[in-house]
């Protein structure tokens, strides 16, 4: 503890702010040997510890990819579980290097908090879940339905807007806590359960018979979730941004963790540039040229990460939907490496 106390006491005594960390986060990270990553206190499929205590999830994979790119070691990362209230302070104060905690990218957060969003790793949005035997296939058929939701959240307002815009009568059944909402829906107290789509899939597992329920295709709000960094360090910002882009580009180019070594010999110039066999793109962000190859080898491309954490074969069973590549009907579109 004394090691940590001494600078504190000295700093306070002299009234001098030690601003060493503000400039080059990458140098600091390299010096300490790990990435300090802020995650949620537990959101299924995005960042949650498993029964062995290892962090897994889509948000966790972004941090692991950064560790792979910088250190060639997915375990060179430490996770700080943060509550929604703490998360921005933790980033601003330098307690963490990157915040990868299902944080919605909004204008206020991007412009007034001294933060930068480095991209979007999951396009979330508010959705509806109904019983299959209701025979409903679209949210537009929900006229007259009773809707279970949380009190006093934007979820409630979004529902009101959506039903009014489509001229449908509805009845709100609101509860204080998420658990109560799920219990009420499970007990048949209402026809529809609404919250963020990723949350719907997670809560569905807690229903008595998950197979009897389905999530409707309509998404009625925009919740782009992505990693966040402090403003004022463009090198670090670029690194996070391109870590994410590399994973998405890799999926588009068909590079997977299984075939990445073979693909290094590929003739496709895009693949060559991505994997660092041509050009010196890694050096521009302060890394080695095989940075993307390391990410894909250790963590996989975006599609692999999606399938392993939230995809159809996991208990969550989320379909790709809007999170598919742009070439496959989604909105994932990463700028090219060139």
């Amino acid at each position, binding site marked *: *503890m004394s090691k*940590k*106390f001494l*600078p*504190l006491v000295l*700093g*306070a005594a002299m009234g*001098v*702010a*030690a*601003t*060493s*960390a*503000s400039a080059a986060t990458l140098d*600091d990270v390299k010096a300490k040997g790990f990435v300090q990553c802020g995650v*949620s*206190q*537990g*959101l*299924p*499929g995005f960042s*949650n*510890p*498993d*029964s062995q*205590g290892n962090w897994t999830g889509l948000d966790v994979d972004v941090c692991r990819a950064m560790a792979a790119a910088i250190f060639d070691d997915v375990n060179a990362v*430490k996770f*700080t*579980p*943060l*509550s929604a*209230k*703490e998360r921005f*302070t*933790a980033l*601003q*104060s*330098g*307690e963490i290097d990157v915040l990868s905690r299902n944080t919605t990218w909004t204008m206020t957060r991007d412009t007034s908090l001294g933060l930068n969003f480095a991209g979007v790793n999951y396009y979330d949005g508010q959705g509806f879940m109904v019983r299959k035997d209701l025979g409903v296939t679209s949210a537009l058929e929900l006229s007259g339905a009773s809707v279970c939701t949380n009190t006093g959240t934007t979820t409630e307002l979004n529902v009101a807007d959506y039903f009014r815009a489509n001229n449908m009568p509805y009845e709100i059944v609101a509860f204080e806590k998420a*658990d109560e909402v799920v219990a009420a829906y*499970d007990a048949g107290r209402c026809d529809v359960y609404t919250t963020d789509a990723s949350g719907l899939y*997670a809560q569905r*597992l*807690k*229903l*008595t*018979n998950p197979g*009897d329920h389905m999530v409707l295709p309509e998404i009625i709000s925009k919740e782009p979730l992505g990693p966040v960094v402090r403003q004022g360090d463009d090198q670090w910002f670029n690194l996070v941004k391109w870590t994410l882009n590399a994973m998405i580009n890799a999926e588009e180019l068909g590079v997977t963790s299984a075939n990445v070594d073979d693909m290094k010999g590929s003739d496709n110039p895009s693949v060559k540039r991505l994997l660092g066999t041509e050009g010196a793109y890694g050096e521009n962000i302060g890394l080695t040229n095989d940075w993307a190859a390391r990410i894909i080898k250790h963590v996989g491309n975006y599609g692999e990460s999606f399938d392993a954490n939230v995809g159809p074969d*996991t*208990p*969550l069973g989320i379909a790709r939907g809007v999170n598919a590549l742009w070439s496959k009907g989604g909105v994932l579109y990463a700028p090219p490496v060139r």
Partner: protein
Amino acid sequence: MANAEMFHVRTEEAPLLPAPVSTTGAIGWMRQNLFSSIGNTILTVIGIFIAYSMIMPIIQFAFIDAVWTGEDRTACLAAEPGEKVGACWAYVGAYMKQFIYGRYPYEELYRVNIVYGLFALLLIPLAMPSVPAKGLNAFLFLVMFPIAAYYLLTGLEFGSFVVFPIVETAVWGGLLVTLVIAVTGIVASLPLGVALALGRRSQMPIIKLVSIIFIEFWRGVPLITVLFMASVMLPLFLPEGVNFDKLLRVLIGVTLFSAAYMAEVVRGGLQAIPKGQYEGAMALGLRFWPMMYLIILPQALKLVIPGIVNTFIGLFKDTTLVLIVGMFDLLGQIKSSFSDSTWATPSQGPTGYLFAGVVFFLFCFGMSRYSIFMEKKLHTGHKR
């Protein structure tokens, strides 16, 4: 002689008849206490019915319908629609290590076990009045044990020579964090509280003023605010990159907070001591500290044992609040395990909370029973 048959003179004592069955044993007790009148009989029947209808579902859930073994969530799902599934103990089993140690590295768990062992080994003889060498025992428990526990839990490294590798407090969790916070808070807040209580009754104006300000400040802010200040506000005042341990911040906050409450409890005890005790002690020629140590405090503290233990139990339960500042105590660890989709089932939540409730009850009930034991042992003329 014929009269001899008409008269009977008892030459030996008649054998004592047993009391009527209706007044002894279980039946007698029930007749006397439960069915002594029509009104009482009705109340008893209603009471039994209420108790039955409340306890049976719990037994049904926790034991009869419970799932004891399984690999993942499928074990704890209803096999067919409508089937009731009880507690998913398989999930608690899979997570038991995390509930007890948090994410402490598995290969270092023996260090935590040594601390748990030392704690029990030193506390139990200290708590038993009949065991001798209390002074040595208290010294070991209050001075040596915290030092040993500190190095065992956080690690000990001399440069490149590693005795115990450093384990950051960020990975501590579960019962370990609950006990570290509760025990540190309890052990540190009692002497601090006594000092503050004496300070508040002191004749010296500065000491009195400082004590009053301290006590009223810490009693005036909620613990949640204290924790938030420590974990969210403090880093903003510190230079960037300087970041002192979150657990330490929480420990200091919790200790100061409960010391203020303890001070008021102890002050209540001090006020109950008649003035004659002080005057008598002074007449014996005792100075302030010997008077307090030998005469006043033993009486005052004995009087407020229920209040002190009340504060301890409150503190123990308040440790669950650290979840909001991102530390995982037992309850926080259980809540965080709900996010693991491998085990997500309808019964996961109730099972986790039931487990947390049982563990917390055991600790709090233990403290409560021990306080009653000490009260009985120390009663001197105050027994009603």
